């Protein structure tokens, strides 16, 4: 049974992605149900994969019976299992958010399922070229989703993302080509064997450089992040929640996979300059991302820049290649996905209920939406890294790993970025709970009834510029208050609870990663 789990994990969502399109010949708004069933099946499969990995250490599937080095291998090991679990859980959770928040079109759910399939593919593939193909499937679906609200601004953001993302993928492909020319294989394990001994080779160095810059573009590491704030800001709230939690996460996972499995820690020992270069790249990203986030006033943009900083942390963890740092990087990868997904979902709820899209708009919303604001507070504090929480664990292990590896500057950078994170989270919390009550705000309408988590019908808001909704209310970006379902609030609260609960799960992560830690 376990040998067909991996292909099913990829094939089920990709095949199911056709169904909403076919259904749209007869019906409308049925895509959500197809996606819900598929994601439930996907979660079951993911649970089975995680269980198999925890029992056997790794699950392999040789596609079509062609053994390596000729065929493609699908592999789930301790590094991919947490990411598989994250993708399955978030895909299901975001659907609960999407039911009310929309979009409801069938074609939206085709792209949604295609994205789930692509993400799973990147996570479980054991072949470098196959990884490129799945990265591009992920990319294609993401570009379509970013533009899903059919507004001009989101189309511009999606096109910018498309051009930069495709350039990144092409650079990755050039790097893969160099490695292929050098070794004649594309299988990751095989590549690791054949690259050993030739690490100083110029082709190998160029290959590493191209692959890392390519994946850096996909991960949105400073200064390759320029597509990301626009894409996150102008995408519909459902889409932002989904892609902020998963797309860059899986690209960062690919960085870890390439460093640990393909080039292996021995490469960094042979070429210390490569490691230093990646660490500098990551450290600049950590600081620049936090600093840029601290000066933003728009909530979604603030959270987007914060992601730039967090992914710098993850890349730094992988590049340190010590057991502590890699453990920290994986914990932070999963933790950041949950935190950012939850925060963007909360931003979506606040926007739908109060029309609040800037830090200023959040004034005193802590009293009008206590449940969601409370969850924002918890997630924000987790993002800063206050124990006990997943945010603390990730940062702690990365910092400890940096100190043990003798890379003191990284530990200092982690500390500085924590201070900067605190500065913008504190600003948000101050607005939520301690803002002057007399201050006029955009959403100072009479919608005190839209409270307590079940406010399915938000009150009438005094809307300064009602956005003409041209295509049937499919634009969550319009400033008019929209419906907020219990499901949407539940997603935010669940993200906050899990983010704290995972703070006690070090042992689980350690068991999983035992086999892959350097």
């Amino acid at each position, binding site marked *: 049974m376990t040998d067909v789990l991996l292909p099913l994990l990829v094939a089920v969502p990709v095949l199911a992605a056709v169904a909403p399109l076919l259904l749209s010949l007869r019906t409308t708004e049925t895509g959500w149900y197809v996606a819900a069933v598929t994601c439930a099946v996907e979660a079951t499969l993911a649970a089975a994969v995680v269980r198999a990995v925890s029992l056997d250490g790794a699950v392999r599937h040789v596609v079509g019976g062609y053994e390596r080095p000729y065929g493609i291998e699908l592999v789930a090991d301790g590094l991919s299992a947490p990411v598989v679990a994250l993708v399955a859980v978030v895909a299901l959770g975001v659907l609960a958010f999407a039911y009310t928040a929309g979009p409801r079109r069938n074609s939206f759910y085709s792209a949604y399922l295609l994205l789930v399939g692509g993400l799973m593919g990147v996570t479980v593939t054991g072949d470098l070229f196959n990884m490129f193909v799945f990265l591009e499937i992920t990319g294609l679906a993401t*570009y379509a989703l970013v533009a899903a609200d059919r507004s*001009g601004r989101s*189309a511009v953001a999606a096109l910018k993302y498309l051009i930069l993302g495709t350039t990144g993928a*092409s650079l990755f492909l*050039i790097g893969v080509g160099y490695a292929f020319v050098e070794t004649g294989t594309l299988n990751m394990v095989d590549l690791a064997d054949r690259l050993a001994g030739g690490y100083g080779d110029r082709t190998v160095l160029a290959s590493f450089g191209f692959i890392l810059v390519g994946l850096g573009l996909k991960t949105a590491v400073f200064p390759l992040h320029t597509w990301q704030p626009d894409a996150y800001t102008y995408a519909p709230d459902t889409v932002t929640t989904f892609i902020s939690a998963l797309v860059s996460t899986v690209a960062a996972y690919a960085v870890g996979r390439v460093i640990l499995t393909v080039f292996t820690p021995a490469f960094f020992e042979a070429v210390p300059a490569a490691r230093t270069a990646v660490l500098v790249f990551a450290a600049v990203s950590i600081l620049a991302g936090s600093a840029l986030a601290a000066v933003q006033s728009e909530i979604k943009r603030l959270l987007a820049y914060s992601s730039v900083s967090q992914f710098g942390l993850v890349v730094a963890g992988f590049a340190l290649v010590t057991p502590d740092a890699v453990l920290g990087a994986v914990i932070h990868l999963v933790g950041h996905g949950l935190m950012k997904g939850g925060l963007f979902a909360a931003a979506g709820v606040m926007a739908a209920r109060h029309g609040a899209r800037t830090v200023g708009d959040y004034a005193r919303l802590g009293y009008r939406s206590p449940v969601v604001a409370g969850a924002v507070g918890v997630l924000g504090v987790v993002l800063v890294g206050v124990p006990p929480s997943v945010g603390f664990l990730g940062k702690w292990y990365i910092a400890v790993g940096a100190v043990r590896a003798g890379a003191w500057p990284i530990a200092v950078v982690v500390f500085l970025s924590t201070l900067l994170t605190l500065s913008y989270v504190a600003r948000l919390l101050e607005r939520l709970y301690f803002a002057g009550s007399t201050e006029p705000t955009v959403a100072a309408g009479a919608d005190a009834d839209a409270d307590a988590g079940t406010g399915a019908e938000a009150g009438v808001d005094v809307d300064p510029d009602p956005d003409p909704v041209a295509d049937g209310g499919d634009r969550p970006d319009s400033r008019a208050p929209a419906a907020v379902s219990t499901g949407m609030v539940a997603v935010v609260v669940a993200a906050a609870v899990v983010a704290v609960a995972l703070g006690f799960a070090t042992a689980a992560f350690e068991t999983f990663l035992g086999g892959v830690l350097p």
Partner: protein
Amino acid sequence: MIDLLASRWAYAAFVVLMVVGLYMMIASPNLVKKVIGLNVFQSAVFLFFIAAAYVVGGSPAIVPPDGGGGPYVSPLPHVIVLTAIVVGVSLTAVALALVVRIHDEYGTVDEAVVEEVADD
């Protein structure tokens, strides 16, 4: 240098095409031309794989039943390029669909004008 160009001209062409593609994406304000630049950039990658797979006097990797008949060209890079072309075509389709929507909304495909209008 001349020697290198004479024997490795396909790789030189790869680098030139790649840089031309990058330059078009950065310098051209026209969104359609940016997409064309992206295509040129991707073609450069295809050329690289094809050039790497080339074997002087090599034949297609169709081995007769009794074996022998080499040297053969490795088919793997060709398969890679075919897949990459399919990926490239679908990306171009999505990109052009986005450009059409941008044109519908702003009435132009000039990046500077679009940004000016979007900021208002």
